[in-house]
């Protein structure tokens, strides 16, 4: 193994290096970048994205896509907000987001599996429906000034680690167990790698898809819960661009949009890199309106780099020969 393979062979390592390089770059331009305050802000801003990206990584691994997650997050947040406003019992408040999220995820799965609609069409259509639903539910006004009933569930720390971080690590651990140690993980990768072959070898392709979209919905619902717990308001734009961010983070992390591959640790670093970049550009004085452009360009850039790297690998020549 030469040094190039060692450095670039592991996606997580490459990404960690990229994060360091990006951090150094912004620190050079803005001395505020590497302060404890700003790093905390970056981590705080990553909370929802970490959860949603984990789900998207699973969806992409089955060669699917879900661009309705932003709308679903908004809807879940509204219900969490209402339950806080209404002073419902704490277990209900905690569970309502994940429950509704899972329900919405299963709606996507039903359309994709039972209706045989391509995932991009089904979730694009649902995105339109969800956005209308958010307007209908909120009636054009925000839910704001919620009481801090959820603080005790998310703010305390255990051994210096915030509870929120523990929740996120728990879900990533769960995801890792599923993808690495449970037959379902093989089913997920097999479905994405070659759906026909997976079906022929007796894997329940439909069931697998129900799981990934449902699980994504669960994570989206929990992300909505954490969102409301921290910001204590819900706007019509809540959840807005998170679908793009999540896809970018997963693809950065080495999960292929063609399916068959999932890299959870990579996704974590991908989220970190996305948020580092978004935060850094604001700090050096680029207006936040550019965020969309930067993220979109990042997605295209990673895809180009990946395609280029693949072309240089021996696998590509073999793949070309089979065409």
């Amino acid at each position, binding site marked *: 193994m030469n040094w190039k393979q060692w450095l670039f062979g592991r996606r997580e390592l490459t990404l960690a290096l990229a994060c360091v390089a990006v951090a150094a770059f912004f620190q050079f331009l803005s001395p505020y970048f590497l302060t404890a305050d700003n790093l905390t802000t970056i981590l705080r801003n990553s909370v929802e994205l970490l959860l949603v990206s984990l789900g998207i990584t699973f969806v992409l691994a089955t060669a699917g896509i879900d661009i309705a997650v932003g709308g679903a997050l908004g809807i879940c947040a509204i219900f969490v907000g209402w339950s806080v406003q209404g002073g419902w019992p704490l277990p209900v408040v905690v569970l309502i987001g994940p429950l509704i999220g899972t329900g919405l995820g299963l709606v996507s799965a039903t359309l994709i599996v039972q209706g045989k609609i391509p995932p991009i069409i089904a979730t694009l259509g649902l*995105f*339109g429906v969800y956005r209308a639903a958010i307007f209908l539910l909120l009636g054009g006004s925000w839910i704001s000034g919620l009481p801090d009933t959820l603080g005790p569930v998310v703010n305390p720390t255990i051994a210096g680690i915030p509870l929120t971080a523990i929740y996120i690590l728990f879900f990533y651990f769960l995801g890792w167990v599923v993808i690495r140690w449970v037959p379902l993980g093989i089913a997920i990768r097999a479905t994405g790698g070659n759906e026909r072959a997976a079906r022929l070898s007796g894997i329940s392709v439909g069931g697998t898809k129900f799981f990934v979209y449902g699980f994504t919905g669960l994570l989206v619902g929990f992300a909505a819960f954490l969102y409301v717990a921290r910001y204590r308001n819900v706007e019509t734009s809540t959840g807005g661009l998170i679908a793009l961010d999540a896809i970018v983070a997963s693809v950065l992390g080495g999960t292929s949009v063609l399916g068959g591959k999932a890299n959870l640790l990579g996704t974590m670093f991908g989220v970190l890199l996305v948020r580092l970049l978004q935060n850094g550009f604001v700090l050096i004085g680029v207006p936040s*309106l550019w965020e*969309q*452009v930067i993220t*979109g*360009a990042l997605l295209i850039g990673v*895809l*180009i780099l990946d*395609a280029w790297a693949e072309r240089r690998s021996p696998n590509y020549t073999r793949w070309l020969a089979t065409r």
Partner: protein
Amino acid sequence: MTTAFKQIRFSGLLVLWLIALMVFAVRAPAFFTLANFTSVLQFSTLLALVTLGQTLVILTGGGGIDLSVGGIVSLSGLAIASLIKAGTPALVAGIAGVVFGGILGSINGFLITRLRLLPLIVTLGTYYAYNGLALALTGGAPISGLPASFGLLGQDAVLAIPLHTWFLVAPIFLVMLFTLNQTPLGRWIYAVGSNEKAARLVGLPVDAIRLGAYALSGVLAALAGLVADSWLLSARPNIGDNLELLSLTATLLGGTSIFGGSGGLAGSLAAVLFFTSLQAGLQMLNVNSIWQLGLVGMFLIGSVLMDRIIRNAEPK
């Protein structure tokens, strides 16, 4: 696609349209005036141009889809408006803007055909990049104050039919329809869409055809931006919002298969007219436009579902 299937498809759309018209007849009689007829056509041009491009992209198959059309409409509209503000003659500015749109579309096509990237992920990336650029470059504010003489294309009508319908939508539609149905190139497009491997084996320039489809989609989107500029005498950075959802829905509702290779432009245009009359009617009934978004999302899912059901019911 069999003719029986096409007929069911088309009559389904017709039934939807008739239901909408009946509702409007009862609730908003003003819908059936000549002025409203003109305004429906006026509204339809943007969507019609974009949808013709979208249909072509989807027809060429390979997972073809163009989610970035709305961004191209906004960006080229802004480019044309700023050129005119800088003193460029309107004709030159228009041509430059259309070329610009073609370049934006070619970027999609290049990434998809040369680097073999997935169309949906590439155009999702450019969707955000183009829309974001339109917002970021203007700070969200429109470029307004274009000279009134520039409004000729967008505002005037002859025989109650807007000039841009006469001079852009109708001729472009007819030329594209003729090309698709009567020329070898049209056959190639269907061949590339229905069986890529076979098309490659008989030596069709698959990649060139797809690249061309994305470029043309960009050109048509830029023309839509030009019409919008001329109509409003200003360029809005968000004028193309939701056009990707609308054009995709119109294409699929019009009977083009999402997998490429079957369908056509006539259905797409019919669906566009259906949408715009629905839009105009709902506006008269004071229905919030956000409802239309939800409705369109349901149409998108519903039309693909219907496809499945009809196909399954068809004897093999």
